[in-house]
């Protein structure tokens, strides 16, 4: 009976999140109240258990990186780089799209995707207005690039943070295993963009000249703060790379970085705190408790056992089943709750039959499927939702299908490229 109740609560919460009938944080906290109220889990299971409780490593890694980003935002670095890039292209639309998308992808590898698109969207509008270009294709391309770039590192996309913590995979593990395929997908995406967005590439020499009058150096108000902020970012990256050697958790690196950034780029404390997405953190906590309840009642074990039987000890079936399934499901529901649910399932699958998981391939297929699958629809990833909201506010509404038409194509190409990569590297 407890199992049925836990699954019912979970399904209801998932449906509420997917249909956006109530804010996702409210849905998650409502589910938490239900599992506590029904006695499915208690404080011990929810707050202190490694298997069934809130993953505090994930929460504090996110918090630390949000503070790092809050400091970087204050420096004007991103605006500087974007305008500098636009001027290097001399206002030619396709090279501009390539440079802005590359900048977005690289930034997304180091920072949260949502933050990256929030930084790049205003400057994109400025440049496109100057060039008399429709900014919509640029905004869509940037969010797709953001989701692609974010797949390459532990901190680039929230699903990766969850996977890294659950599977004990380091920053270097992600870069070494996912970096190459992300570069391949990114190159393919940029080539594809030449054709799918071709209608947007109209060149007006007079308008292009006006871009050359923008002064990117003016974006940086305090060069010393910028240098200090960059130094902190480099130290954080070194910390992530050496995290295993130093024997510290990624969350500790991020928290130290967040604190150092607040000192390096001084600003009102409340301004820093406003940049922390508290609602997202609470949403994550709620998700962990809900998934923990499923673990507690044995539902996750049962699902993992069923999957183990279904793949029949075949790592190829398991890998591509997870890859395709994750891509399809992440297109329909936000990839964060999806991965929060699937992480314990994959963990159990790998534990049940270690032969299914050579070189952690199950984890990489989960990450690639969820991260790239998030591109498929307007609601697949948080960054998509955010960009569509921004575009509407700026007077350039993007419809669900307008986004999905491009996103779905990019997802299909991305996943198709993952198949030979995973096969050749881990399964052949």
């Amino acid at each position: 009976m407890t199992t049925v109740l836990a699954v019912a609560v979970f399904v209801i919460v998932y449906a509420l999140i997917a249909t956006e009938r109530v804010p996702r944080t409210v849905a998650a906290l409502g589910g938490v109240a239900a599992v506590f109220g029904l006695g499915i889990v208690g404080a011990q299971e929810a707050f202190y258990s490694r298997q069934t409780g809130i993953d505090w490593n994930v929460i504090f890694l996110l918090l630390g990186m949000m503070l790092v980003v809050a400091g970087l935002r204050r420096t004007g670095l991103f605006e500087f780089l974007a305008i500098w890039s636009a001027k290097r292209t001399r206002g030619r639309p396709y090279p501009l799209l390539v440079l802005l998308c590359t900048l977005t992808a690289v930034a997304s590898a180091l920072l949260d995707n949502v933050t990256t698109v929030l930084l790049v969207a205003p400057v994109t509008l400025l440049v496109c207005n100057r060039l008399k270009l429709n900014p919509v294709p640029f905004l869509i391309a940037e969010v797709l690039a953001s989701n692609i770039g974010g797949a390459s590192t532990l901190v680039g996309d929230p699903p990766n943070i969850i996977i890294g913590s659950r599977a004990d995979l380091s920053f270097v593990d992600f870069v070494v295993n996912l970096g190459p395929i992300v570069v391949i997908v990114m190159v393919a995406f940029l080539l594809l963009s030449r054709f799918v967005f071709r209608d947007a590439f109209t060149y007006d020499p007079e308008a292009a000249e006006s871009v050359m009058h923008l002064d990117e150096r003016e974006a940086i108000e305090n060069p010393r703060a910028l240098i200090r902020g960059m130094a902190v970012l480099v130290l954080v990256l070194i910390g992530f790379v050496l995290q295993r050697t130093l024997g510290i958790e990624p969350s500790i690196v991020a928290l130290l970085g967040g604190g150092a950034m607040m000192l390096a780029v001084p600003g009102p404390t409340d301004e820093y705190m406003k940049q922390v997405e508290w609602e997202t953190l609470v949403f994550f906590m709620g998700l962990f408790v809900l998934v923990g309840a499923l673990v507690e009642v044995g539902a996750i074990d049962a699902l993992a056992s069923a999957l183990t039987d279904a793949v029949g000890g075949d790592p190829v079936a398991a890998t591509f089943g997870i890859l395709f399934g994750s891509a399809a499901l992440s297109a329909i529901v936000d990839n964060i709750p999806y991965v929060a649910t699937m992480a314990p399932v994959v963990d159990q699958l790998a534990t049940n039959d270690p032969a299914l998981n050579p070189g952690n391939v199950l984890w990489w297929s989960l990450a690639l499927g969820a991260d790239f699958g998030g591109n498929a629809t307007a609601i697949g990833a948080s960054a998509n939702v955010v960009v569509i909201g921004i575009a509407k506010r700026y007077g350039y509404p993007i419809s669900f299908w307008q986004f999905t038409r491009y996103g779905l194509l990019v997802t299909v190409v991305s996943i198709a490229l993952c198949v030979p990569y995973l096969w050749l590297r881990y399964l052949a």
Partner: protein
Amino acid sequence: MKGVRDRGALHQCPTSTHAALFRHYAAGVMALDLAQPVGLVGTADTVLDIVRRLVDEALPGLAVISDDGRPLAVLPASQVLGLAVPAYIKDDLSLARVVDEAAADRLLEALVGLTVQDVLDDAEPDLLGTIDHDATLLEVAALMSRLHVPLLVVAGPDGRAIGTISAFKVLGTAINEV
């Protein structure tokens, strides 16, 4: 000196409504006493027209009224100025610095062709900024303060706009009571 009120503006008003109101509220400054018939614009006016009025009449803002004279919104001069600034620059002020002076000087070009109605379609409902004719000086000051607007539109008993009250007028009246 409380209780001694300047009713000059009211006595100059020829309407019987105002005279009746004066008899009813014999003591205390009311919004009606402070209202001035300036700064009222219609929804069909262009934004550039109202910018010219703001400049020519040195007004802190304008009140928008409907065709039948009912108050619709208050447009402080700062909000009118804000209409000329793209939303993406409001979100990222550092972008305002990177734009060259020549382009920056042409900021009002964004308002060409816009009417007041276009502006109202995107306006915050909170900016209604209307106060009843019998509101006290404190009520007027409190609403101005809460809405961060430099003027309010005064609605008469029939709901139609009588005029506007500026923050300057409120302060000028209040200082005499100290």
